[in-house]
């Protein structure tokens, strides 16, 4: 008997008496004792609703049907009191965002001990001692002090460790982790995933891992369930699923992810549409409306699961079979040789510094301490090329992008835009310059005014910058731009909330390019989007850049996306540029230890490659940018750290190999170049 056997689970949310949406539409899955099972899908596929249903944590507006047999007992027949006795003891959960999932006004220690006091017979003192042990087990140094602290005093990675400590406190049989690393940085993600897998093994707990990231799953899971439209559409062992994906959706998902080892000069193969335009299962395959090979045969009500091979089942009328997943469809046009144009870069940043007040004096309120967000960065953006800037949160990459537009005050240094220094320029002089540089933001929902129609949003920049021509010409321009970003012309009269995330980001791009700028700054343009939609936007950005011969500064934390889109790549750490090179060169031969560890931390959507490679998991957290380490900012976490120079001498950026600049004292030694 399986530890967990979910049969035909349905979850319906009723918003009003007549309107209801089906989030989970007949999910069946099993988890054996001690097994690691992944549930993969995009937003709206019902994976989180499934997890919450298991613990009986859905809001009151939800109706649950079906069976959830856990340890021989159907949880759907229990009332909340009976369920609460099992929650936290037999089934425990780790949530996505450790900042909001911990109570901000209760000390960490209490948040751990309360679950022990509830479910075990421990005394207060014994529970406190056990909490200390748990913190040690999840790798938090100085646990006695930490127990008295509050969530905001811990880093994101540490908070998630606390969540994990709470979850394993009572030795649960099943640990459910809902996107446990999505809110974390890549190097921290690697630590937390490793920890979760190890703890589940040590405690003999089964792990149900819910994620949108196939890469996270590949190295961790024994078995993978892929969900679409509220149902499991494919289930197989992890190696089998990645080797022989059957369902067209699984294949599409794998094809649309740029990987660190996929060929670079090809356009990605996106899945058209968004995960929200789907059919109900009663009328046929839910994925049919987005599927390239769908036909009448797919319109069978309630498509059953088909057995492909033992343990590999799917719900597809036209399974992919053994054909390789198509990766390249259209080849990208070759880049114009860089030497052809003017050698003068469009933007030249020299010794740029951006700082924020960190602490203020008691009475005068003057800042006495600064966070050095950007701490002396010099780089060039060559004309017509894409410069990718990567780094983890807090490394200063966004501050740098914003300072370029003078959206942040520049503390010192210069920003030459086409030969003009923007750093000391007055507001009045900046305006015509800003017309030539536009920005695409991460969250299109937050950066578009919800009360303006798309037509008004797009017309506004034309009006603000006094583009010649009247409303008639502006409108024509708006319509042309909508065509350009692949939105229907009717979008003009609609409002941001009427669009899906991907379409909204198209509006964001249209708003940025309508002024025909020279420079486009894209700050995490795809990280808020679903995997299948990311590829569409990546391709659109590439196309727009080519047709408008834009110079692009791409700011992102996702190495694969940066590698795919950029000509040159710069890596930042704690406000400094630590490495810069041509994209191919950088990814083939990273020289800075930080870049090396960053690449090794990215999970690959391929269990074979994942198990073969040697991973460097960085220990510790990012130091605070208000109080950076002496010498090389990376020396506190560097696996190649040496006794001399690293801790006391700041390494300068220097050309180690022609065209490849690195800020490391020992780059040649580490790379074996000398």
């Amino acid at each position, binding site marked *: 008997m399986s530890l967990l056997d979910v049969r035909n689970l349905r979850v319906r949310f009723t918003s009003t008496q007549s309107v209801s949406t089906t989030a989970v539409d007949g999910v069946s899955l099993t988890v054996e004792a001690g097994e690691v099972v992944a549930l993969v899908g995009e937003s709206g596929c019902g994976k989180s609703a499934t997890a919450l249903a298991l*613990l009986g*944590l859905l809001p009151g507006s939800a109706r649950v049907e079906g069976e959830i047999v856990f340890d021989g007992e159907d949880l759907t027949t229990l009332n909340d009191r009976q*369920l*609460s*006795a*099992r*929650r*936290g*003891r037999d089934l*425990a*959960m780790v*949530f996505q*965002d450790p900042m*909001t*999932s*911990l*109570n*901000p*006004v*209760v*000390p960490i220690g*209490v948040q751990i001990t*309360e*679950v022990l006091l*509830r*479910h075990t017979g421990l005394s207060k003192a014994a529970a406190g001692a056990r909490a200390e042990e748990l913190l040690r087990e999840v790798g938090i140094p100085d646990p006695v002090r930490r127990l008295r602290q*509050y969530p*905001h*005093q811990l880093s994101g990675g540490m908070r998630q460790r606390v*969540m994990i400590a*709470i979850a394993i406190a009572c030795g649960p049989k099943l640990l459910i982790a809902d996107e446990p690393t999505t809110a974390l940085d890549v190097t921290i993600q690697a630590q937390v995933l490793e920890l979760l897998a190890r703890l589940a093994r040590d405690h003999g707990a089964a792990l149900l891992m819910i994620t949108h990231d196939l890469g996270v799953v590949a190295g961790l899971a024994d078995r993978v369930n892929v969900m679409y439209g509220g149902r499991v559409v494919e289930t197989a062992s992890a190696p089998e699923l990645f080797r022989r994906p059957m369902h067209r959706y699984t294949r599409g998902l794998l094809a649309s992810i740029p990987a660190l080892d996929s060929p670079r000069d090809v356009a990605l193969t996106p899945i058209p549409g968004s995960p929200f335009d789907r059919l109900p299962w009663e009328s046929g395959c839910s994925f049919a409306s987005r599927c390239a090979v769908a036909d009448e045969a797919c319109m069978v009500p309630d498509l059953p699961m088909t057995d492909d091979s033992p343990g590999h089942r799917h719900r597809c009328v036209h399974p992919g079979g053994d054909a390789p997943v198509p990766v390249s469809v259209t080849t990208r046009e070759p880049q114009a040789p860089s030497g052809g144009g003017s050698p003068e870069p469009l933007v030249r940043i020299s010794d740029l510094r951006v700082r924020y007040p960190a602490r203020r004096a*008691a*009475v005068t*309120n003057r800042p006495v301490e600064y966070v050095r967000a950007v701490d002396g960065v010099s780089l060039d953006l060559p004309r017509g090329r894409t410069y990718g800037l990567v780094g983890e949160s807090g490394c200063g990459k966004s501050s740098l992008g914003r300072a370029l537009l003078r959206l942040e005050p520049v503390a010192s240094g210069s920003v030459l835009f086409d030969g003009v220094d923007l750093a000391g320029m007055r507001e009045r002089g900046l305006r015509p310059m800003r017309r030539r540089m536009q920005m695409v933001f991460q969250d299109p929902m937050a950066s578009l005014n919800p009360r303006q129609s798309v037509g008004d949003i797009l017309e506004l920049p034309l009006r603000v910058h006094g583009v010649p021509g009247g409303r008639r010409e502006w409108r024509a321009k708006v319509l042309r731009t909508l065509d350009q970003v692949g939105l229907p012309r009717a979008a003009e009269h609609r409002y941001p909330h009427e669009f899906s995330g991907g379409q909204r980001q198209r509006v964001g791009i249209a708003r940025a390019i309508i002024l025909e700028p020279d420079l486009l700054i894209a700050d995490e343009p795809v990280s808020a989007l679903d995997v299948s939609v990311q590829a569409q936007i990546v391709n659109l950005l590439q196309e727009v850049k080519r047709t408008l011969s834009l110079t692009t500064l791409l700011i992102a934390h996702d190495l694969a996306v940066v590698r795919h889109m950029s000509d040159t790549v710069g890596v930042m750490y704690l406000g400094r540029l630590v490495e810069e090179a041509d994209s191919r060169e950088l990814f083939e031969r990273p020289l800075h230890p930080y870049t090396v560890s960053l690449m090794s931390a990215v999970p690959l959507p391929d269990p074979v490659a994942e198990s073969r490679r040697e991973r460097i998991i960085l220990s510790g957290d990012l130091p605070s940018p208000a109080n950076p380490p002496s010498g090389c900012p990376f020396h506190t976490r560097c696996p190649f750290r040496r006794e001399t120079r690293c801790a006391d001498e700041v390494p300068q950026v220097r050309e180690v190999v022609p065209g490849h600049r690195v800020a490391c004292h020992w780059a040649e030694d580490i790379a074996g170049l000398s």
Partner: protein
Amino acid sequence: MIAFVARRLALVVPVLFGLSLLLFVWLRLLPGDPARALLGERATQEGIDRVNHLYGFDRSLPEQFLLFLERLARGDLGSSIRTGQSVVGSFFERFPATVELAVAGLGLAIVVGIPLGYFAARRKGGPLDHLSVGASLLGVVVPVFFLAYLLKYVFAIRLGWLPTAGRQDVRLDATHPTGLYVLDGVLTGEWDAAWDALLHLILPAMALGAIPLAIIVRITRASVLEVMNEDFVRTARAKGLTRAVIRRRHVMRNALLPVSTTIGLQAGALLAGAVLTETVFALNGVGEFLFTAVNHLDYPVLQGFVLFIAVIYAVVNLLVDVSYAVIDPRARQR
């Protein structure tokens, strides 16, 4: 924490200075003349000049202001034009009555408002929710003086359950070491005097507390509803905690943050309400005295009292900020 309090206190000084200046100029822009108000319709010019000279109103405005500041530095706020009593003395004579009223009114609002708001949120959409939301709307829109008269009419005059006016039955001849009558009765062991003072306080406290009560109910309700949707409450449920622990430790502590801010803001509005309440119930408090002073353009009293009230307001808000820091560890760093 100490630096935080020090900074806040240091900020109070320029605020008080600005307020004094503003009030000083503003009072003198008002139509009317204090000497004429004092001497009446048929005052002679000579008499008016004498009064003006006596109080220094014949000097230039900057000179008058400097004189005011100079006295203030010595702790002297002058004396009333009307009664000749010292401003400081008469303030402290009347202040206890107002403090007692304000504490009772706000206390009532807090003690009743927070639980009511909480239960309204728990039973969202239920009869109690509708009732409390409706009643709180009524509480906000009904003017204080109207409510005061209404309460007095129903409970004191028609039903005769409670006394109509004053702070205590004079026949009790109680002793008053602090001036807070209820407390005095308890301190001296004169229980009948304490009980009597408490009965006198009920209606004024209800009249004064109605608006803050209504606002506290609404803020508490909204805040509890918001916190119940927070991720950490879901985490608490996922831990299998009992409802009582979730409510007390996870919901209420967070929900009280905006409520405490509101209470601080209400303290200011409370003084405005106190003027009317004290007048209706003939409580010899600061508000009532201020009201008379306005009618007589009693400059020294107005200046002095407003300054006192501003100091009290600043202190109350400082206390609120401190309580905020006690509840919310994140606020301690700022």
